[in-house]
């Protein structure tokens, strides 16, 4: 998946309107990030990459870049 497409998907998933996302964006500092958006991200990753991120790994996520590393950088172009 192209990184731009991923960022767009993530924005849609989190229903973010007024903030531009990039790899440096800290997910946990986003106003929209809560226990419900975690479920949405899991669904989005399962749908697009067929991968499951463990609850423990979710705890360690900070930036969007760190989420991409968990998914596996080989999945991005």
């Amino acid at each position, binding site marked *: 998946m192209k990184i731009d497409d991923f960022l767009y998907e993530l924005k849609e998933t989190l229903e973010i309107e007024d903030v531009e996302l990039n790899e440096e964006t800290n997910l946990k500092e986003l106003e929209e990030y809560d*226990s419900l958006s*975690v*479920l949405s991200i*899991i669904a989005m990753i*399962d749908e697009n990459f067929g991968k499951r991120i*463990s*609850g423990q790994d979710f705890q360690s996520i900070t930036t969007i870049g760190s989420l991409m590393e968990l998914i596996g950088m080989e999945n991005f172009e």
Partner: protein
Amino acid sequence: MNLDSKNNKEKFGSEIKKIEVYLPVKILKNSTLEKEFSEWSANKIEKKTGIRERHIVNEDETSLDIGFEVAKKVLQGYDKSQIDFILFCTQSPDYYLPSGSCILQDKLGLRTDIGAFDYNLGCSGFIYGLAMAKSFINSEIANNVLLLTAETYTKHIHQKDKSNRTIFGDGAAATIIEKSDKEGILEFSLGTDGSGFENLIVPNGGLRKKYDISAKEIDDGTGSIRTDNNLYMNGPEIFNFTIKAVPIVIEQCLAKNKTNFSKIDYVIFHQANKYMIEYLRKKIKIPEDKFYNNMLHTGNTVSATIPIALKECLDNNILKDGNKVLLVGFGVGYSWGATIIEV
């Protein structure tokens, strides 16, 4: 003993005869949660979880109380002397011992020459209850089973636990399963994976880790606070588990019943939350008009969600006589199961 007697037996099966629901009087609305948790929006909760309000027991009201209320309701207009087994499913029991089902036998004025026991399961509890009721009837241990699924998870939840207070509600369902001349409860596929037991748990209060009056508050990082005396749910892990387990158990259940989706009229999942079961529906490619997704006024009532949904579908003529309905329960344990019933 006449060894041939088995071959001369008439063929029979079991069927769900009656379902009743009881919801506690007190209601917790999203608008109240919004006031308590500044960053929570009532509209967002409803949009994502499909929940607008949930019923909550009072401090002095227990699973036994709501189980009693719903049992009285289902026995109205029913010859209660016919009930010869009580199955009581709860994870918020009144006592370690005795079984709530024994107390209920007496309170309900049921016969004393009947069987009764409690079992500890959550969101898979109704499916397992049907499996046991069917087995007891088919093996002639019982003819008319009273299955009670009564849950008061809110007693386990910390007042500052935003996520769990949003998702869970209290409620009870009573289902009567009777001997019948045809089989209305078809084959089951059940599943268990205890490796995930810590992901949905009340850590303290049992005999391994006793209730700790000075247990420290734990912040989960998304605005929810609890202690180890309370219910803990690792949402991401539970979602991962369902994504993995539910499609497989459905496939197994359809295969065991030698059928396929085209012959199933309707599907009722454990009503966990709208977002999660809608994602599973799409993933498994179940048509939207064959799928129930409604917990607007109840929230996730654990082992009571499937019979609540089933009753709503029957009352609203969503289900018609002869319909084949796939039921799927999944959650705490991990424990899961699926079956097909004919209504």
